[in-house]
């Protein structure tokens, strides 16, 4: 396997310590857990998605590990503006705040809370299981463009995270680009469900949820590859990555950096483990492989 040169990575205006970023919503509820992940070798971290008002999330079960992945319907639990206290000790670190809202104005308002406190924001337009929020916006290109524009106008580097649950993800990616996104993050979870055969009902409290982990890796690679052709802003790959080779594969599809979520369940120190395998002083510069599978 090839290795990469270590060193800082620039991804849509955010400077990361390496290519490996903690995905939104995974151990991102407290400042301490974000710091733990940064110290364990992540190049950057994305926080839990923060919205205009505190939410307790859906009733449980909220998450079940299944063959090849995780199924979750957390329901965007978040402390809203109080979250600023959590991350106050993380100033200067590569922290990206994940934000959401029910309208362009709400998104922009939440974004402004984070001005001067984070390296960038990630606009979550894609959570498939919070009614009124998330994919209600994220499947509509003109709303995506408006929300992006409203958030980007705050001047922070603005990553826009897309849902794969659309007929044509490129259309949504182009809308984010027109709205002024600095980068696209693909993908959020894939809409899914499991039923408890014993209890004869959907297993998640919210019935529907989002699939993540190994199962979605080929879907994520496809989305990154399509977006790389359709858009000209950088793409951050996300979905099912769990080993160094997956990181290379995502980069060859077109990703400048990679987010990792579900795989943290198996191994909370996977950032350093992957980093050790991925980087070496005689590695190649990442630009040699980003998008190389398109040639």
């Amino acid at each position, binding site marked *: 396997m090839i290795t990469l040169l270590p060193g800082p990575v620039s991804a849509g205006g955010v400077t990361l310590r390496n290519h490996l970023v903690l995905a939104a919503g995974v151990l991102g*509820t407290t400042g301490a857990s974000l710091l733990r992940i940064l110290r364990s070798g992540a190049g950057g971290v994305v926080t839990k998605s923060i919205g205009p008002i505190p*939410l307790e999330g859906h009733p*449980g*079960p909220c998450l*079940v590990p299944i063959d090849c992945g995780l199924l979750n319907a957390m329901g965007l639990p978040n402390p809203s503006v109080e979250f600023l206290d959590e991350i106050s000790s993380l100033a200067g670190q590569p922290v990206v705040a994940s934000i959401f809202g029910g309208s362009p104005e709400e998104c922009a308002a939440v974004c402004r809370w984070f001005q001067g406190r984070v390296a960038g924001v990630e606009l979550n337009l894609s959570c498939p299981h919070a009614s009124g929020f998330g994919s209600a916006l994220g499947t509509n290109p003109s709303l995506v463009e408006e929300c992006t524009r409203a958030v980007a106008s705050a001047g922070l580097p603005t990553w826009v995270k897309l849902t794969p649950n659309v007929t044509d993800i490129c259309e949504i990616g182009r809308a984010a680009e027109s709205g002024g996104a600095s980068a696209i993050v693909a993908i959020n979870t894939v809409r899914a469900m499991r039923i408890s055969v014993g209890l004869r009902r959907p*297993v998640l409290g919210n019935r529907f949820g989002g699939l993540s982990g190994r199962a979605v890796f080929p879907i994520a690679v496809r989305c990154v590859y399509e977006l790389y052709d359709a858009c000209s802003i950088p793409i951050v790959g996300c979905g099912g990555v769990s080993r160094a080779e997956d990181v290379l594969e995502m980069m060859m599809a077109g990703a400048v950096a990679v987010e990792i979520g579900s795989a943290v369940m198996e191994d909370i120190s996977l950032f350093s483990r992957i980093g050790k395998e991925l980087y070496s002083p005689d590695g190649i510069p990442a630009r040699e492989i980003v998008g190389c599978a398109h040639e």
Partner: protein
Amino acid sequence: MSEGLPVPARITRVIPETPSVATFEFDAEFSFIPGQFVMVWVPGVDEVPMALSSASSITVQRVGDATAALFRLGPGDSIGIRGPFGNGFPRGKKMLAVAGGVGAAPLLPAVAAGGVEKVLLGARSRDELLFREKFASLASLSVATDDGSLGLPGFVPELLNPEDLASCDAVLCCGPERMMARVLALLVGWGCPGKGYFSLHRYMKCGVGICGSCCIDPGGLRVCRDGPIFSGDLLVEGEFGRYGRDAAGRRCPV
């Protein structure tokens, strides 16, 4: 076959233990380490963490929606169970157990497994002393009640004395957090916080160490996965005994 999905469990018996606590026995058996917990799905209501009080039971205090719904179930009704999760209590030879309220639930199988010589049990009143007879048959038992209706009038930490502590290898502790914080403070005073093992309660959503809702300051340890049992030296600085977080992730006092 069942992946990580809840395993269906049919309730076989409900044993009232105290006015607010009952043991729910079910037809599924779990191999577990005392102190480990399961996520209990009350269909249509919620999923909440509960310690296993035996391989096929949980012992539950009625406090809110999910527990009240559980109390409405009886033999023949089904719940779903994920787990067991977490690390469990350490094993040892000369151990002391300190239990407050429903905190006796995870300690019962620990005491039954052997190695615990003395149990200190507290509750608000005589009626609320959980598993008093069971503990008495397994180890030497001292009790304390807030209202003085049995044993020492006052709080269970007051039963702890330096002699017992000096002669024991470990103190296993579970109960209301302020009670546990008091025990930790005593251990710190006696210079041995590391002898204490505390079973923490935090808001849990996933149970498997991924969602982050149960993380504690300052280290970002996950109660569901790195715990729920932590040795006292890991808890002396930070939120333990001071605050926790609610379902939304807001800080709230304990």
